[in-house]
Protein backbone atom coordinates (compact mmCIF):
# COMPACT_ATOMS: atom_id res chain seq x y z
CA UNK A 1 0.00 0.00 0.00
CA UNK A 2 1.54 3.29 -1.10
CA UNK A 3 1.19 6.35 1.10
CA UNK A 4 2.10 9.87 -0.03
CA UNK A 5 4.08 11.76 2.62
CA UNK A 6 3.01 15.42 2.77
CA UNK A 7 6.35 16.93 3.87
CA UNK A 8 8.82 14.53 2.25
CA UNK A 9 6.78 14.69 -1.00
CA UNK A 10 7.44 11.08 -1.92
CA UNK A 11 5.29 7.98 -2.01
CA UNK A 12 6.36 5.03 0.09
CA UNK A 13 5.15 1.56 0.95
CA UNK A 14 3.37 1.67 4.32
CA UNK A 15 4.15 -1.94 5.27
CA UNK A 16 7.84 -1.49 4.56
CA UNK A 17 7.91 1.44 7.01
CA UNK A 18 5.99 -0.50 9.67
CA UNK A 19 8.57 -3.28 9.37
CA UNK A 20 11.53 -0.90 9.53
CA UNK A 21 10.07 0.82 12.59
CA UNK A 22 9.54 -2.53 14.29
CA UNK A 23 13.09 -3.72 13.63
CA UNK A 24 14.66 -0.56 14.98
CA UNK A 25 12.24 -0.62 17.94
CA UNK A 26 13.45 -4.10 18.96
CA UNK A 27 17.07 -2.89 18.98
CA UNK A 28 16.05 0.16 20.94
CA UNK A 29 14.31 -1.86 23.65
CA UNK A 30 17.16 -4.37 23.88
CA UNK A 31 20.17 -2.09 23.94
CA UNK A 32 18.88 1.32 24.97
CA UNK A 33 19.96 2.99 21.73
CA UNK A 34 17.67 5.26 19.74
CA UNK A 35 18.37 3.50 16.49
CA UNK A 36 18.88 6.65 14.43
CA UNK A 37 22.25 5.31 13.24
CA UNK A 38 20.39 2.47 11.51
CA UNK A 39 17.21 4.26 10.47
CA UNK A 40 18.85 7.25 8.75
CA UNK A 41 20.62 5.26 6.00
CA UNK A 42 17.56 3.02 5.54
CA UNK A 43 15.30 6.04 5.02
CA UNK A 44 17.82 7.59 2.59
CA UNK A 45 17.78 4.33 0.72
CA UNK A 46 14.01 4.33 0.18
CA UNK A 47 14.19 7.89 -1.14
CA UNK A 48 13.26 10.12 1.81
CA UNK A 49 15.15 13.46 1.61
CA UNK A 50 17.96 13.46 4.24
CA UNK A 51 16.71 16.53 6.15
CA UNK A 52 13.24 15.01 6.52
CA UNK A 53 14.66 11.61 7.48
CA UNK A 54 16.79 13.00 10.32
CA UNK A 55 14.02 15.20 11.76
CA UNK A 56 11.23 12.64 11.51
CA UNK A 57 13.32 9.90 13.00
CA UNK A 58 13.86 11.98 16.13
CA UNK A 59 10.09 12.01 16.56
CA UNK A 60 9.88 8.26 16.07
CA UNK A 61 12.63 7.67 18.62
CA UNK A 62 10.61 9.66 21.20
CA UNK A 63 7.82 7.12 20.78
CA UNK A 64 9.90 3.93 20.88
CA UNK A 65 12.06 5.19 23.79
CA UNK A 66 8.95 6.13 25.77
CA UNK A 67 7.47 2.71 25.11
CA UNK A 68 10.76 1.08 26.16
CA UNK A 69 11.15 3.20 29.30
CA UNK A 70 7.67 2.26 30.52
CA UNK A 71 8.58 -1.41 30.13
CA UNK A 72 11.80 -0.80 32.09
CA UNK A 73 10.01 1.18 34.80
CA UNK A 74 7.81 -1.86 35.44
CA UNK A 75 10.98 -3.90 35.95
CA UNK A 76 12.52 -1.14 38.10
CA UNK A 77 15.56 -0.85 35.84
CA UNK A 78 15.58 2.92 35.28
CA UNK A 79 17.89 5.12 37.37
CA UNK A 80 16.03 8.44 37.26
CA UNK A 81 18.64 10.29 39.31
CA UNK A 82 21.45 9.24 37.01
CA UNK A 83 19.28 9.89 33.95
CA UNK A 84 18.59 13.45 35.09
CA UNK A 85 22.27 14.17 35.80
CA UNK A 86 23.24 12.83 32.36
CA UNK A 87 20.45 14.83 30.76
CA UNK A 88 21.62 18.10 32.31
CA UNK A 89 25.11 17.40 30.99
CA UNK A 90 23.64 16.38 27.63
CA UNK A 91 21.70 19.62 27.16
CA UNK A 92 24.80 21.70 27.95
CA UNK A 93 26.78 19.54 25.53
CA UNK A 94 24.16 19.87 22.78
CA UNK A 95 24.27 23.67 23.04
CA UNK A 96 28.09 23.64 22.80
CA UNK A 97 27.88 21.09 19.97
CA UNK A 98 25.62 23.31 17.86
CA UNK A 99 28.16 26.13 18.13
CA UNK A 100 31.01 23.79 17.14
CA UNK A 101 28.92 22.40 14.28
CA UNK A 102 28.24 25.86 12.84
CA UNK A 103 31.92 26.75 13.15
CA UNK A 104 32.94 23.59 11.30
CA UNK A 105 30.28 24.21 8.67
CA UNK A 106 31.70 27.65 7.97
CA UNK A 107 35.06 25.96 7.39
CA UNK A 108 33.55 23.36 5.05
CA UNK A 109 34.08 19.60 5.07
CA UNK A 110 32.00 19.08 8.22
CA UNK A 111 30.46 16.02 6.62
CA UNK A 112 33.79 14.30 6.22
CA UNK A 113 34.95 15.14 9.74
CA UNK A 114 31.74 13.72 11.18
CA UNK A 115 32.13 10.49 9.27
CA UNK A 116 35.76 10.06 10.24
CA UNK A 117 34.99 10.75 13.92
CA UNK A 118 32.18 8.29 13.75
CA UNK A 119 34.26 5.51 12.23
CA UNK A 120 37.06 6.00 14.76
CA UNK A 121 34.66 6.23 17.72
CA UNK A 122 32.54 3.27 16.81
CA UNK A 123 35.58 1.17 15.93
CA UNK A 124 37.32 1.84 19.26
CA UNK A 125 34.20 1.48 21.41
CA UNK A 126 32.94 -1.60 19.58
CA UNK A 127 36.33 -3.29 19.65
CA UNK A 128 36.86 -2.65 23.37
CA UNK A 129 33.37 -3.86 24.27
CA UNK A 130 33.75 -6.96 22.15
CA UNK A 131 37.04 -7.99 23.80
CA UNK A 132 35.76 -7.23 27.30
CA UNK A 133 32.47 -9.09 27.00
CA UNK A 134 34.16 -12.06 25.31
CA UNK A 135 36.53 -12.30 28.29
CA UNK A 136 33.58 -12.00 30.71
CA UNK A 137 31.74 -14.82 28.94
CA UNK A 138 34.85 -17.03 29.03
CA UNK A 139 35.32 -16.31 32.73
CA UNK A 140 31.76 -17.29 33.62
CA UNK A 141 32.11 -20.47 31.55
CA UNK A 142 35.31 -21.51 33.33
CA UNK A 143 33.69 -20.65 36.67
CA UNK A 144 36.07 -17.83 37.69
CA UNK A 145 34.40 -15.22 39.88
CA UNK A 146 33.86 -11.85 38.13
CA UNK A 147 36.45 -9.24 39.01
CA UNK A 148 35.40 -6.79 41.69
CA UNK A 149 34.96 -3.23 40.56
CA UNK A 150 38.21 -1.34 40.78
CA UNK A 151 38.50 1.60 43.08
CA UNK A 152 40.00 4.22 40.78
CA UNK A 153 40.54 7.97 40.62
CA UNK A 154 36.87 8.55 39.78
CA UNK A 155 35.97 7.63 43.34
CA UNK A 156 38.23 10.31 44.75
CA UNK A 157 36.31 13.23 43.23
CA UNK A 158 34.18 15.58 45.36
CA UNK A 159 30.38 16.21 45.16
CA UNK A 160 29.44 12.61 45.81
CA UNK A 161 25.90 11.49 45.18
CA UNK A 162 24.04 8.25 45.80
CA UNK A 163 22.50 6.56 42.76
CA UNK A 164 20.30 3.90 44.38
CA UNK A 165 19.07 1.97 41.35
CA UNK A 166 22.59 1.65 39.96
CA UNK A 167 24.01 0.88 43.40
CA UNK A 168 26.65 3.60 43.03
CA UNK A 169 28.00 6.27 45.34
CA UNK A 170 30.13 8.48 43.12
CA UNK A 171 30.83 12.12 42.31
CA UNK A 172 28.39 13.82 39.91
CA UNK A 173 31.32 15.20 37.90
CA UNK A 174 31.94 12.09 35.72
CA UNK A 175 28.24 11.61 34.78
CA UNK A 176 27.88 15.29 33.89
CA UNK A 177 31.06 15.13 31.79
CA UNK A 178 29.83 12.00 30.03
CA UNK A 179 26.53 13.81 29.36
CA UNK A 180 28.33 16.86 27.97
CA UNK A 181 30.59 14.75 25.73
CA UNK A 182 27.69 12.74 24.35
CA UNK A 183 25.63 15.92 23.89
CA UNK A 184 28.41 17.52 21.84
CA UNK A 185 28.81 14.43 19.69
CA UNK A 186 25.06 14.08 19.27
CA UNK A 187 24.71 17.66 18.08
CA UNK A 188 27.61 17.36 15.64
CA UNK A 189 26.71 13.95 14.27
CA UNK A 190 22.94 14.44 14.33
CA UNK A 191 22.26 11.20 16.21
CA UNK A 192 20.81 10.63 19.68
CA UNK A 193 24.09 9.39 21.06
CA UNK A 194 22.77 6.21 22.71
CA UNK A 195 25.57 4.34 21.02
CA UNK A 196 28.22 6.27 22.87
CA UNK A 197 26.15 6.80 26.03
CA UNK A 198 25.53 3.09 26.70
CA UNK A 199 29.19 1.97 26.66
CA UNK A 200 30.20 5.11 28.59
CA UNK A 201 27.71 4.28 31.36
CA UNK A 202 28.86 0.67 31.53
CA UNK A 203 32.61 1.21 31.45
CA UNK A 204 33.23 4.76 32.67
CA UNK A 205 30.55 5.02 35.34
CA UNK A 206 30.44 1.31 36.21
CA UNK A 207 26.65 1.05 36.08
CA UNK A 208 25.04 -2.42 35.86
CA UNK A 209 24.19 -3.31 32.23
CA UNK A 210 20.49 -3.91 32.99
CA UNK A 211 20.01 -0.42 34.46
CA UNK A 212 21.99 1.21 31.66
CA UNK A 213 19.44 0.34 28.97
CA UNK A 214 16.42 1.88 30.74
CA UNK A 215 18.38 4.93 31.90
CA UNK A 216 19.75 5.58 28.43
CA UNK A 217 16.24 5.40 26.96
CA UNK A 218 15.00 7.79 29.65
CA UNK A 219 17.42 10.53 28.68
CA UNK A 220 17.05 9.84 24.94
CA UNK A 221 13.34 10.76 25.18
CA UNK A 222 14.19 14.31 26.24
CA UNK A 223 17.05 14.82 23.81
CA UNK A 224 15.01 13.61 20.82
CA UNK A 225 11.85 15.49 21.86
CA UNK A 226 13.92 18.67 21.95
CA UNK A 227 15.44 17.84 18.54
CA UNK A 228 11.99 17.19 17.06
CA UNK A 229 10.69 20.59 18.18
CA UNK A 230 13.82 22.30 16.92
CA UNK A 231 13.50 20.72 13.47
CA UNK A 232 9.74 21.34 13.30
CA UNK A 233 10.08 25.04 14.07
CA UNK A 234 13.26 25.92 12.16
CA UNK A 235 13.50 23.58 9.17
CA UNK A 236 9.85 22.41 8.83
CA UNK A 237 11.13 18.93 8.08
CA UNK A 238 9.17 16.71 10.49
CA UNK A 239 6.85 14.51 8.43
CA UNK A 240 4.10 13.44 10.77
CA UNK A 241 2.69 10.79 8.43
CA UNK A 242 6.11 9.17 8.08
CA UNK A 243 6.60 9.41 11.86
CA UNK A 244 3.28 7.68 12.59
CA UNK A 245 4.07 4.83 10.18
CA UNK A 246 7.48 4.33 11.76
CA UNK A 247 6.41 4.65 15.37
CA UNK A 248 3.55 2.17 15.21
CA UNK A 249 6.14 -0.50 14.42
CA UNK A 250 8.65 1.14 16.78
CA UNK A 251 6.58 1.09 19.98
CA UNK A 252 5.62 -2.57 19.50
CA UNK A 253 9.22 -3.49 18.68
CA UNK A 254 10.49 -1.70 21.79
CA UNK A 255 8.25 -3.83 24.02
CA UNK A 256 9.44 -7.03 22.37
CA UNK A 257 13.06 -5.86 22.56
CA UNK A 258 12.79 -5.13 26.27
CA UNK A 259 11.48 -8.58 27.09
CA UNK A 260 14.22 -10.20 24.99
CA UNK A 261 16.79 -8.01 26.76
CA UNK A 262 15.70 -8.95 30.27
CA UNK A 263 15.94 -12.64 29.45
CA UNK A 264 19.55 -12.35 28.33
CA UNK A 265 22.72 -12.28 30.40
CA UNK A 266 24.46 -8.92 30.73
CA UNK A 267 27.63 -10.00 28.92
CA UNK A 268 25.61 -11.56 26.08
CA UNK A 269 23.78 -8.26 25.68
CA UNK A 270 27.10 -6.40 25.67
CA UNK A 271 28.69 -8.64 23.06
CA UNK A 272 25.68 -8.31 20.74
CA UNK A 273 25.81 -4.54 21.11
CA UNK A 274 29.55 -4.63 20.39
CA UNK A 275 28.97 -6.65 17.21
CA UNK A 276 26.33 -4.17 16.09
CA UNK A 277 28.59 -1.18 16.76
CA UNK A 278 31.38 -2.85 14.77
CA UNK A 279 29.00 -3.65 11.89
CA UNK A 280 27.86 -0.02 11.64
CA UNK A 281 31.49 1.09 11.82
CA UNK A 282 32.47 -1.31 9.01
CA UNK A 283 29.60 -0.10 6.86
CA UNK A 284 30.62 3.55 7.29
CA UNK A 285 34.26 2.73 6.62
CA UNK A 286 33.37 0.85 3.43
CA UNK A 287 31.31 3.82 2.23
CA UNK A 288 34.41 5.96 2.53
CA UNK A 289 36.81 3.43 0.99
CA UNK A 290 34.91 1.72 -1.82
CA UNK A 291 34.41 3.39 -5.17
CA UNK A 292 30.81 4.68 -5.20
CA UNK A 293 28.57 3.65 -8.09
CA UNK A 294 27.56 7.27 -8.61
CA UNK A 295 30.12 9.91 -7.70
CA UNK A 296 27.63 12.75 -8.18
CA UNK A 297 24.86 13.56 -5.71
CA UNK A 298 22.02 16.05 -5.90
CA UNK A 299 21.22 18.31 -2.95
CA UNK A 300 18.79 21.14 -2.37
CA UNK A 301 20.35 24.54 -2.85
CA UNK A 302 20.09 26.61 0.29
CA UNK A 303 19.02 23.62 2.38
CA UNK A 304 21.21 21.16 4.27
Amino acid at each position, binding site marked *: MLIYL*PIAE*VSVNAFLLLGLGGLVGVLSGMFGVGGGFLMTPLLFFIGIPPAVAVATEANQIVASSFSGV*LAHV*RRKTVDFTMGTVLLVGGLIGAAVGVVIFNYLKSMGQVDLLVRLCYVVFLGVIGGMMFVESLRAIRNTRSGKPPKRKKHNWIHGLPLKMRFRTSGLYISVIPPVLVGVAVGILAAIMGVGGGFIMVPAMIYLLGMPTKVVVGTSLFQIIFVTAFTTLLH*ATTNFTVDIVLAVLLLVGGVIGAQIGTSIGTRMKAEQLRILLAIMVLAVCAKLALDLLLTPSEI*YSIGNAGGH
Partner: protein
Amino acid sequence: MRAALACLALAACLLAARTGAEEVVLGLSKDKVAITATFEGSEILVFGAVKREVPIPEEPLDVIVAVAGPDKPLIVRRKERRFGIWVNIDAVEIDAAPSFYAVATTGPFDQVLSNVEDLRHRVSIPQAIRSVGAPATVGDAQAFTDAVIRIRKGNGAYKVEEGAVSLDEQTLFRASISMPANLTEGVYATRIFLTRGGEVVATYQTSIDVRKVGLERWLFNMSREQPLLYGLMSLAIAIAAGWGASAAFRVLRQN
Protein backbone atom coordinates in the same frame (compact mmCIF):
# COMPACT_ATOMS: atom_id res chain seq x y z
CA MET B 1 1.88 19.48 -63.40
CA ARG B 2 3.22 17.53 -60.46
CA ALA B 3 6.10 19.97 -60.02
CA ALA B 4 3.65 22.82 -60.04
CA LEU B 5 1.61 21.12 -57.34
CA ALA B 6 4.71 20.55 -55.26
CA CYS B 7 5.56 24.23 -55.65
CA LEU B 8 2.09 25.15 -54.53
CA ALA B 9 2.32 22.85 -51.56
CA LEU B 10 5.66 24.35 -50.60
CA ALA B 11 4.27 27.83 -50.92
CA ALA B 12 1.31 26.89 -48.80
CA CYS B 13 3.59 25.40 -46.25
CA LEU B 14 5.73 28.52 -46.06
CA LEU B 15 2.64 30.62 -45.85
CA ALA B 16 1.27 28.44 -43.11
CA ALA B 17 4.48 28.72 -41.15
CA ARG B 18 4.49 32.46 -41.51
CA THR B 19 0.90 33.17 -40.67
CA GLY B 20 0.39 30.34 -38.24
CA ALA B 21 -2.32 28.82 -40.38
CA GLU B 22 -2.01 25.58 -38.50
CA GLU B 23 -3.23 25.71 -34.93
CA VAL B 24 -3.42 23.26 -32.07
CA VAL B 25 -6.76 22.52 -30.48
CA LEU B 26 -6.00 20.72 -27.25
CA GLY B 27 -7.76 18.64 -24.65
CA LEU B 28 -6.43 17.16 -21.42
CA SER B 29 -8.06 14.22 -19.68
CA LYS B 30 -7.59 16.31 -16.53
CA ASP B 31 -5.98 19.67 -15.85
CA LYS B 32 -5.78 19.15 -12.09
CA VAL B 33 -3.97 16.40 -10.23
CA ALA B 34 -5.01 15.98 -6.61
CA ILE B 35 -2.39 14.44 -4.32
CA THR B 36 -4.22 12.49 -1.66
CA ALA B 37 -2.71 10.27 1.05
CA THR B 38 -3.00 7.22 -1.20
CA PHE B 39 -1.78 8.96 -4.37
CA GLU B 40 -0.12 6.40 -6.63
CA GLY B 41 0.82 8.51 -9.60
CA SER B 42 -1.35 9.76 -12.41
CA GLU B 43 -1.84 9.16 -16.09
CA ILE B 44 -2.74 12.19 -18.17
CA LEU B 45 -4.06 11.84 -21.65
CA VAL B 46 -3.08 14.75 -23.87
CA PHE B 47 -5.13 14.79 -27.05
CA GLY B 48 -5.85 17.31 -29.74
CA ALA B 49 -6.31 18.20 -33.35
CA VAL B 50 -4.59 20.42 -35.84
CA LYS B 51 -6.90 23.11 -37.12
CA ARG B 52 -5.94 24.48 -40.52
CA GLU B 53 -7.44 26.68 -43.20
CA VAL B 54 -5.11 25.43 -45.93
CA PRO B 55 -4.64 22.02 -47.55
CA ILE B 56 -2.32 19.64 -45.69
CA PRO B 57 1.25 20.43 -46.74
CA GLU B 58 3.22 17.58 -48.23
CA GLU B 59 6.01 17.50 -45.69
CA PRO B 60 4.92 15.20 -42.85
CA LEU B 61 3.78 16.69 -39.59
CA ASP B 62 5.31 15.79 -36.25
CA VAL B 63 4.05 16.50 -32.74
CA ILE B 64 6.02 17.00 -29.52
CA VAL B 65 4.40 17.05 -26.09
CA ALA B 66 6.54 18.35 -23.19
CA VAL B 67 5.39 18.42 -19.57
CA ALA B 68 7.65 20.19 -17.04
CA GLY B 69 7.32 20.32 -13.26
CA PRO B 70 8.21 23.41 -11.20
CA ASP B 71 11.83 24.61 -11.45
CA LYS B 72 14.07 24.39 -8.43
CA PRO B 73 17.72 25.30 -7.80
CA LEU B 74 20.02 22.38 -7.00
CA ILE B 75 23.50 21.70 -5.74
CA VAL B 76 25.34 18.87 -7.42
CA ARG B 77 28.36 17.49 -5.60
CA ARG B 78 31.09 15.26 -6.93
CA LYS B 79 33.17 12.86 -4.91
CA GLU B 80 36.85 12.30 -5.46
CA ARG B 81 39.38 10.00 -3.89
CA ARG B 82 41.68 11.83 -1.48
CA PHE B 83 44.11 10.00 0.81
CA GLY B 84 42.32 6.74 0.03
CA ILE B 85 38.83 7.87 0.97
CA TRP B 86 35.96 9.26 -1.10
CA VAL B 87 35.15 12.87 -0.28
CA ASN B 88 32.84 15.49 -1.80
CA ILE B 89 35.24 17.89 -3.48
CA ASP B 90 33.54 19.95 -6.19
CA ALA B 91 30.04 21.39 -6.11
CA VAL B 92 28.12 23.17 -8.85
CA GLU B 93 24.94 25.08 -8.33
CA ILE B 94 22.29 24.51 -10.98
CA ASP B 95 20.09 27.60 -11.20
CA ALA B 96 16.91 25.83 -12.18
CA ALA B 97 16.03 22.26 -12.97
CA PRO B 98 12.47 21.00 -13.33
CA SER B 99 11.43 18.48 -10.68
CA PHE B 100 9.76 16.47 -13.45
CA TYR B 101 10.23 16.53 -17.20
CA ALA B 102 8.64 14.31 -19.81
CA VAL B 103 8.95 14.70 -23.58
CA ALA B 104 6.89 12.58 -25.94
CA THR B 105 7.29 12.75 -29.71
CA THR B 106 5.94 11.12 -32.84
CA GLY B 107 9.41 10.01 -34.00
CA PRO B 108 13.15 10.08 -33.21
CA PHE B 109 13.86 13.35 -31.38
CA ASP B 110 16.67 14.61 -33.62
CA GLN B 111 14.51 14.14 -36.72
CA VAL B 112 11.44 15.76 -35.22
CA LEU B 113 13.21 18.88 -34.00
CA SER B 114 16.33 20.61 -35.29
CA ASN B 115 19.05 21.75 -32.91
CA VAL B 116 18.39 25.39 -33.66
CA GLU B 117 14.71 25.05 -32.84
CA ASP B 118 15.54 23.10 -29.72
CA LEU B 119 17.79 25.94 -28.54
CA ARG B 120 15.06 28.47 -29.29
CA HIS B 121 12.21 26.64 -27.57
CA ARG B 122 14.16 24.70 -24.91
CA VAL B 123 12.47 21.38 -25.53
CA SER B 124 15.02 18.60 -24.91
CA ILE B 125 16.02 17.67 -21.36
CA PRO B 126 19.50 19.32 -21.41
CA GLN B 127 17.85 22.54 -22.62
CA ALA B 128 15.31 22.43 -19.79
CA ILE B 129 18.07 22.69 -17.18
CA ARG B 130 19.58 26.12 -16.72
CA SER B 131 23.04 26.40 -15.30
CA VAL B 132 25.17 29.52 -15.30
CA GLY B 133 28.15 30.55 -13.27
CA ALA B 134 29.90 27.34 -12.27
CA PRO B 135 32.85 28.16 -9.99
CA ALA B 136 36.17 28.69 -11.76
CA THR B 137 37.68 25.71 -9.94
CA VAL B 138 35.36 23.37 -11.82
CA GLY B 139 36.43 22.98 -15.41
CA ASP B 140 33.77 20.55 -16.58
CA ALA B 141 30.48 22.06 -15.43
CA GLN B 142 28.65 20.16 -18.15
CA ALA B 143 29.45 16.86 -16.40
CA PHE B 144 27.40 18.03 -13.42
CA THR B 145 24.36 18.82 -15.57
CA ASP B 146 24.76 15.44 -17.27
CA ALA B 147 24.82 13.80 -13.83
CA VAL B 148 21.51 15.43 -12.89
CA ILE B 149 19.95 14.11 -16.09
CA ARG B 150 21.42 10.63 -15.57
CA ILE B 151 20.26 10.36 -11.94
CA ARG B 152 16.81 11.73 -12.67
CA LYS B 153 16.33 9.54 -15.74
CA GLY B 154 17.26 6.62 -13.50
CA ASN B 155 14.48 7.32 -11.01
CA GLY B 156 11.89 8.15 -13.65
CA ALA B 157 11.66 11.90 -13.03
CA TYR B 158 12.99 12.74 -16.50
CA LYS B 159 12.02 10.81 -19.59
CA VAL B 160 12.07 11.04 -23.36
CA GLU B 161 9.53 8.84 -25.08
CA GLU B 162 10.14 8.81 -28.81
CA GLY B 163 7.16 7.56 -30.76
CA ALA B 164 4.79 7.86 -27.81
CA VAL B 165 2.64 10.47 -29.56
CA SER B 166 0.30 8.88 -32.10
CA LEU B 167 -0.81 10.98 -35.03
CA ASP B 168 -3.72 10.15 -37.35
CA GLU B 169 -4.28 11.68 -40.76
CA GLN B 170 -1.80 14.47 -39.89
CA THR B 171 -4.61 15.96 -37.84
CA LEU B 172 -5.52 14.06 -34.71
CA PHE B 173 -2.86 13.34 -32.10
CA ARG B 174 -2.78 11.91 -28.61
CA ALA B 175 -0.19 10.96 -26.00
CA SER B 176 -0.39 9.53 -22.56
CA ILE B 177 1.98 11.06 -19.98
CA SER B 178 2.45 9.03 -16.82
CA MET B 179 3.42 11.00 -13.72
CA PRO B 180 5.17 9.15 -10.88
CA ALA B 181 3.85 8.86 -7.32
CA ASN B 182 6.48 11.18 -5.86
CA LEU B 183 5.32 14.39 -7.52
CA THR B 184 6.15 17.83 -6.26
CA GLU B 185 3.36 20.36 -5.90
CA GLY B 186 3.08 23.14 -8.42
CA VAL B 187 2.10 24.19 -11.90
CA TYR B 188 3.22 21.73 -14.56
CA ALA B 189 3.72 23.62 -17.81
CA THR B 190 2.51 21.58 -20.76
CA ARG B 191 3.69 22.56 -24.22
CA ILE B 192 2.72 21.17 -27.61
CA PHE B 193 4.89 21.76 -30.68
CA LEU B 194 3.90 20.98 -34.28
CA THR B 195 6.95 20.57 -36.49
CA ARG B 196 7.66 19.97 -40.14
CA GLY B 197 11.17 18.93 -41.16
CA GLY B 198 12.51 19.91 -37.77
CA GLU B 199 11.02 23.43 -37.90
CA VAL B 200 8.38 24.45 -35.37
CA VAL B 201 5.20 25.54 -37.21
CA ALA B 202 2.88 25.99 -34.24
CA THR B 203 3.01 25.93 -30.47
CA TYR B 204 0.44 25.71 -27.75
CA GLN B 205 0.88 26.11 -24.02
CA THR B 206 -1.32 25.13 -21.12
CA SER B 207 -0.76 23.93 -17.58
CA ILE B 208 -1.66 21.09 -15.26
CA ASP B 209 -2.16 22.03 -11.64
CA VAL B 210 -0.75 19.53 -9.14
CA ARG B 211 -1.97 20.12 -5.58
CA LYS B 212 -2.12 18.31 -2.28
CA VAL B 213 -5.67 17.96 -1.01
CA GLY B 214 -7.47 16.87 2.15
CA LEU B 215 -5.30 15.61 4.99
CA GLU B 216 -2.08 16.15 3.04
CA ARG B 217 -2.98 19.80 2.44
CA TRP B 218 -3.98 20.33 6.05
CA LEU B 219 -0.81 18.80 7.52
CA PHE B 220 1.44 20.63 5.08
CA ASN B 221 -0.19 23.99 5.82
CA MET B 222 -0.04 23.39 9.55
CA SER B 223 3.67 22.50 9.46
CA ARG B 224 4.35 25.83 7.75
CA GLU B 225 1.89 28.13 9.51
CA GLN B 226 1.93 26.77 13.06
CA PRO B 227 5.24 24.93 13.33
CA LEU B 228 5.32 24.89 17.15
CA LEU B 229 1.83 23.42 17.40
CA TYR B 230 2.71 20.93 14.68
CA GLY B 231 5.86 19.86 16.54
CA LEU B 232 3.96 19.51 19.82
CA MET B 233 1.28 17.48 18.05
CA SER B 234 3.97 15.15 16.65
CA LEU B 235 5.38 14.68 20.15
CA ALA B 236 1.93 14.09 21.65
CA ILE B 237 1.27 11.37 19.09
CA ALA B 238 4.66 9.79 19.83
CA ILE B 239 4.10 9.78 23.60
CA ALA B 240 0.53 8.48 23.25
CA ALA B 241 1.68 5.67 20.94
CA GLY B 242 4.51 4.71 23.30
CA TRP B 243 2.16 4.61 26.27
CA GLY B 244 -0.51 2.75 24.28
CA ALA B 245 1.87 -0.01 23.22
CA SER B 246 3.16 -0.39 26.77
CA ALA B 247 -0.37 -0.62 28.20
CA ALA B 248 -1.44 -3.09 25.51
CA PHE B 249 1.52 -5.37 26.24
CA ARG B 250 0.84 -5.29 29.97
CA VAL B 251 -2.72 -6.44 29.32
CA LEU B 252 -1.46 -9.14 26.92
CA ARG B 253 1.00 -10.48 29.47
CA GLN B 254 -1.54 -10.64 32.27
CA ASN B 255 -3.88 -12.81 30.20
